[in-house]
């Protein structure tokens, strides 16, 4: 929040001139009828996407030359806001002259770019980006109908943020590579979640299959597991640094050193010791122990014995170790 955000901008003021112009006067709205297409020797495809009760619905008409798979004419009808109407109009424009296989590569990003007045300024405010996604979805639907395949088959990856077209794999990779810890960081790195925000968490405008909060939590969990596994592997190979071990691994390592080098001498004198806790106390690692049996209350337990335990652990594991009897 800063001065510039103190007074919210009107949504309409953030529309490009192209959006405004096409909303007022769409160039390709209308219908194509089967009989007309047939009379020209072409095939008509009519695809619907969305529903009025969801707030957005679009119907796309393609007249296709079956000899070349080329879309010779296209029109649309739309139930939606200004952005939805302008997006549908530009999407229809972009389809004309392309083959079905080429048209299916048109994304909502292409549609939004085509609506910009200049390449640097977005055509619509972030929260309206989702209105351009429909245009992309209906193309896939139309292509699927023409080619006799499922519309989903055109999607090679799982798209999490439809506004910015960011895939699940990309998100996981970016989180791992950059050690991202918050959704805000994900948005900074990928733009995912920066537009209509439906993909951030449940409860937004649209219900999504994947949400950034879950992807972040799952990926962070995976990262932690991988880290633990790597540490365990390194320990097994004898190469793990004590400082990098998990707490459980540290306890095991300390126990092993005590068993091997110290405990036998304590038992011989009728005593023993146990590890209570290990805590990071930068730059030290504090190991809390408790003496048992004869060692408890023994004069040497705070001097010679303690020194022997600490120096052994320092030598074998890390010179940052401090041993603290409680």
């Amino acid at each position, binding site marked *: 929040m800063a001065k510039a955000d103190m007074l919210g901008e009107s949504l309409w003021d953030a529309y490009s001139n192209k959006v405004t112009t096409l909303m007022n006067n769409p160039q390709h709205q209308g219908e194509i009828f089967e009989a007309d297409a047939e009379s020209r020797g072409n095939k*008509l495809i009519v*695809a619907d996407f969305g529903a009025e009760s969801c*707030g957005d619905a679009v119907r796309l008409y393609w007249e296709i030359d079956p000899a070349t798979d080329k879309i010779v004419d296209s029109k649309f009808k739309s139930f939606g806001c200004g952005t939805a109407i302008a997006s549908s109009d530009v999407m229809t424009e972009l389809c004309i002259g392309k083959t079905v296989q080429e048209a299916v590569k048109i994304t909502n990003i292409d549609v939004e770019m085509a609506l910009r007045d200049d390449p640097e300024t977005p055509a619509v405010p972030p929260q309206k980006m989702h209105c351009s996604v429909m245009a992309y979805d209906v193309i896939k639907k139309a292509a699927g109908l023409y080619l006799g395949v499922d519309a989903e088959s055109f999607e090679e990856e799982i798209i999490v943020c439809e506004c910015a077209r960011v895939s699940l794999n990309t998100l996981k990779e970016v989180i791992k590579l950059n050690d991202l810890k918050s959704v805000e960081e994900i948005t900074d790195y990928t733009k995912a979640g920066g537009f209509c925000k439906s993909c951030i968490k449940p409860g937004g405008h649209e219900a999504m299959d994947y949400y950034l909060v879950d992807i972040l939590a799952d990926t962070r969990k995976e990262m932690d597991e991988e880290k633990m596994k790597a540490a365990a592997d390194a320990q097994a190979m004898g190469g793990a640094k004590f400082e990098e071990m998990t707490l459980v691994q540290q306890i095991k390592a300390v126990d092993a050193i005590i068993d091997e080098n110290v405990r036998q001498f304590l038992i011989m004198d009728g005593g023993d010791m146990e590890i209570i806790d290990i805590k990071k106390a930068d730059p030290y690692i504090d190991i809390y122990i408790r003496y048992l049996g004869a060692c408890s209350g023994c004069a040497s337990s705070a001097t010679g014995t303690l020194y022997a335990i600490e120096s052994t652990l320092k030598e074998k594991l890390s010179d940052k170790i401090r041993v603290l009897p409680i």
Partner: protein
Amino acid sequence: MQVYLDNNATTMCDPKVVEAMLPYFSEQYGNPNSLHKFGSSTHPALMNAINQTYKALNASDNDDIVFTSCATESNNWVLQSVWVDHVLNGDKNHIVTTEVEHPSVLSTCKFLEEQGVKVTYLPVNEEGVVEAHTVKSFITDKTALVSVMWASNETGMINPIKEIGEICKEKGVLFHTDGVQAVGKIPVDLQDVHVDFLSFSAHKFHGPKGIGGLYIKDSQPLSPLMHGGDQMGGRRSGTLNVPYIIGMGKALELATENIEEKMASIRAKRDRLEDAILELSDTFTVGNRDNRTPNTILVSIKGVEGEGMLWDLNNGEIGASTGSACASEDLEANSVMLAIGADNELAHTGIRLSLSRFTTDAEIDYVISHFKKAVERLRGISSSFAKQAPTKGGEVQECELHHHH
């Protein structure tokens, strides 16, 4: 021609109100709490504004009417005091309100839930009205407060405030009503209904923005929201906003004198506009017009998305409002529209037209003509009105509409 039909959002400040306020900005600018005559010279005008306010609401001299910055502050004050007055004492911890309240009530309730207050959000019937027996059935011995709006900002529907007030009185529960859309639009007689707290705001009845009030019945205790110099008997500290209080008093007087006559005039224009809209096919309006504030119409136009309609009306210099999700910042479908539950589509096609006493017959004629053109154009684009049936793949997409509550 420019026509403003968004009077439930805010109204034009009546020129007579502006005139009444003007001397108190630069001529009589003294602080009324000062001892010297610069301050005390404002007292007669302030007292006059207080008298105008009490008279307009028919409040008793034993009641308090405290000037606040707006109804949002008044609503926050009443609700937040439940936490201070009851929850901290451990005696009561429950508020009953409705799903269709203004965000200043709903957001405060959400905040209070985080502080340990339990809140029941009552549903409304298909007309958007909260039924008194529903309120009754949710009051428990832990209920500290019932808060039900007098009239809806979205639909204009009027709740049975008198009945609810009687129930609260009988049950010994405090009753607050957000009267923002009622005060100045319909008769509000505080001797006729049992209301412990009533919030109102001047800019909804041709007064200035930034001034409102809270009526507090018969010295009911209420923890102050603002502490400071003990102005307004310690109820609400802060230097009195002299010109605005005077403006609100004048605005209230102008709005409430001969209110039945004013209502009849506004209602006649509203009904004429509503009838003309309903002549268009596949349109419907929400709620019985006899139980609505006389200035409000919420209309659903099949196949025409709300923002699109607002856009076309705006191109014709007509200002209205929409409950359409697409025209708001948070993109969620309008919770009030969804609470009515008649039709999900309404949440996306609803247009709210709200008149004022300054709306003229010529303006209504203009709106009727432009409205029809806009509907015709947008239905020309609309997929709902496509003649060609889809050949294949016409199945409807599944979607989920999100309720706030």
